[in-house]
């Protein structure tokens, strides 16, 4: 069984969009997909944040905001919706990073219901095995 593991560190709209699109492509092709949510990526999946349109990365200045507007004008699905489509068609799992949970003083109850469990980084790496690992 092919496997893809994504370390989702970023919490900006553009990078969440990229992660969600990669996850949906993997899911569509029958690749078992795991998303390890850490730092800002985990923050984006707090119950009070999930699904919100988030700012684009500051790395691209005004271009990032222009891109956000373009996507909105063209009616592109938002990142949260794309993750939903990925889960719909394939085998996609979301795991929260235990270290970030601890730092932010969060429990699983504080997170969006798509997040299945809280795991340590060693568990994530061990589960990833020989599959592809992406850091976003």
């Amino acid at each position, binding site marked *: 069984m092919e496997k893809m593991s994504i370390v989702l560190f970023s919490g900006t709209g553009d990078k969440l969009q990229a992660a969600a*699109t990669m996850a949906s*492509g993997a899911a*569509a*092709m029958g690749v078992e997909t795991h998303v390890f949510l850490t730092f800002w990526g985990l923050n984006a999946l707090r119950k009070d944040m999930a699904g919100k349109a988030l700012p684009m990365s500051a790395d691209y200045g005004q271009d990032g905001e222009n891109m956000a507007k373009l996507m909105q004008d063209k009616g592109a699905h938002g990142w949260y919706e794309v993750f939903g*489509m990925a889960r*719909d*068609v394939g085998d996609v799992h979301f795991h929260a990073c235990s270290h970030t949970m601890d730092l932010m003083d969060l429990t699983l109850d504080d997170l969006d219901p798509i997040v299945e469990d809280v795991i340590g980084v060693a568990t994530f790496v061990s589960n990833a095995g020989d599959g592809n690992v992406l850091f976003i």
Partner: protein
Amino acid sequence: MTTPSVEREIDARSSFCPGPLMELIRAIRESDPGTTIAVLSKDPGSRTDIPAWTAKAGHELVAVEEQGDHARFIVRKAS
């Protein structure tokens, strides 16, 4: 050339990569084996993604019709 008959058509022209493929997958899941489904897509990625998925999932890509600004992919669900 005759156009294959289609039992269900999905208009995914407003959907971006990989949206049209996702809509096709959902429609195939909901359908009986042997059902023929068409999906309309403007996404250039569909031209590689839909044939790749169809081959991997074991369904049949019956035809790809160019229709100006979009393509119409016709897929028959494996029996």
